[in-house]
């Protein structure tokens, strides 16, 4: 492997191994409803705490939790 190829390979590996921070945006609307830009597993418990009766969130949560036991 050439030196350039080696450096590119190393950089690719480092990028693969790097843990990028997770970012999420909440829009707290004037009537108190909350819009979340990305509903992924780490945000689901919070989403459910805003409305424990929201069946959509329950469904997402049970989907993400499947097979964890």
């Amino acid at each position, binding site marked *: 492997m050439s030196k350039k190829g080696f450096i590119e390979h190393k950089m690719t590996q480092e990028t693969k191994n790097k843990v990028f921070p997770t970012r999420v*945006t909440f829009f707290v*609307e004037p009537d108190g409803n909350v819009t979340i830009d990305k509903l992924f597993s780490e945000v689901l418990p919070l989403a459910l705490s805003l409305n424990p009766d929201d069946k959509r969130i329950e469904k997402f949560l049970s989907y993400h939790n499947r097979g964890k036991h």
Partner: protein
Amino acid sequence: MSHFTTIKTKITDSNALRKALKDLGYPIIEEGHNLPLYGYQGDKRPQTANIVVRRKYISAASNDLGFIKVGIAYEMIISEYDVDLLGSDFVNNLMQRYAYHKVLSETKSQKWTKVKEENMQDGTIKLVLTK
């Protein structure tokens, strides 16, 4: 992964509710079980509540403002007079402040960090968090 999901907020957390009431100018509340509610003439009302803002903190002619826990969520007990007095935005403002404090307290407990807070032109509060 879904994008832009809107959640209809329900008041379930007394701490966040207390903070919301404080933001709206009612720092003194009573909390307990079956607290009696009083009308503007000092008359005892048939309803009871779990969280109460006493009428003296609202106005001389107001009734007590109460929140009763029904199932998992709190329901507001407010007279028509006080809805007129406090303005139709009062309930929305309370819900927004509640949701704001609820989002911040839940995200903090789950080790999220707030990186940006912005009040948008339409009154929406934008919160950007990272982990």
